[in-house]
């Protein structure tokens, strides 16, 4: 028996494809975000509400990740925004090569924003770099205010936290103050934006965040 030294990142293949995707997007002036959250946390709703406020429809492209069905892509396309469904088969996350393959079929000219809705799951998608410029973690009130402590990696690696369904706070034991404390413990200084279907304000704020982040990261063409 001999020892064979390897010392490499287990995810190196995925990470190198992700780096390729990121470089391609930066070159084309496209700012890419990866939306991560549990099933039903409100990711598709967030896109439906935020995108019309973000930019002219032709400047945005949405990739919808799901284990099966094209329902979410159809919801986005109904709003006049180009959306491509990525079905992952049984995989619980989108891997970088799926993004690369989807982008090869898309026209990127004139695009400024790429929004990827990852497969509903707070754990696996946090492990996989897909070539995004920023991750956004989407958590809904009914999931509970302790989730940052239970899923620290996704909160730690995301640039923004969107807390959805705040209209449901009165019907649950969710405490926004406690949630903020928990987020602060995991990711000091993390920006949290609260949204509800009953008010447009939060969605405006998310659109503003995306615009300023695109400018800040110099993806502006």
């Amino acid at each position: 028996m001999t020892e064979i030294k390897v010392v490499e990142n287990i995810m190196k293949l995925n990470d190198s494809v992700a780096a390729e995707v990121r470089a391609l997007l930066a070159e084309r002036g496209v700012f890419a975000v990866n939306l991560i959250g549990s099933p039903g946390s409100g990711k598709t709703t967030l896109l439906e509400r935020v995108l019309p406020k973000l930019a002219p429809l032709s400047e945005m492209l949405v990739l919808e990740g799901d284990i099966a069905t094209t329902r979410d892509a159809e919801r986005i396309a109904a709003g006049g925004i180009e959306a491509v469904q990525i079905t992952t088969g049984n995989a619980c996350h989108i891997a970088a090569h799926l993004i690369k393959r989807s982008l090869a079929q898309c026209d990127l000219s004139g695009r400024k924003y790429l929004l990827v809705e990852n497969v509903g799951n707070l754990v696996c998608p946090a492990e996989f770099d897909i070539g995004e410029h920023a991750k956004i973690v989407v958590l809904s009130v009914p999931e509970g205010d302790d989730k940052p402590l239970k899923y620290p990696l996704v909160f730690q690696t995301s640039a923004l936290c969107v807390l959805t369904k705040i209209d449901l706070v009165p019907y649950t034991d969710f405490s926004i103050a406690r949630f903020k404390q928990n987020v602060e413990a995991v990711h000091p200084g993390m920006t949290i934006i609260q949204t509800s279907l009953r008010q447009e304000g939060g969605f405006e704020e998310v659109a503003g965040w995306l615009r300023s982040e695109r400018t800040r990261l110099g993806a502006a063409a």
Partner: protein
Amino acid sequence: MHEYSIAAALADRVREQIELHRLRRVSVVRLRIGRLRGVVVENLSMFLGLLLEGTAAAGAKLEVDEVPIRLSCPACGMVAEAPEVWALHCPRCMGPAEIVAGKELTFVSLEAE
């Protein structure tokens, strides 16, 4: 569930090494995994075992060196181990700290012939 994703990537890396060095038998796979990854080693080991069935690494033992989360505070200079996976601020001044260790997902070595 995320242990499956990691196991699948790792199984590819192990197969790559088997081909590269024309290994006949792999007895141990060694990893270094940061605590922040929240990997349940038992699950990883089970998935890896299934994925490597029928290869030269079938039945190989998985050895994992778990790396604690280490924080470094740019404001006050404190260097410390995070007391919990979710306590990622500076334990002295409570400011934002940099994570200097604890995110590792490293394939370190193989014991093979």
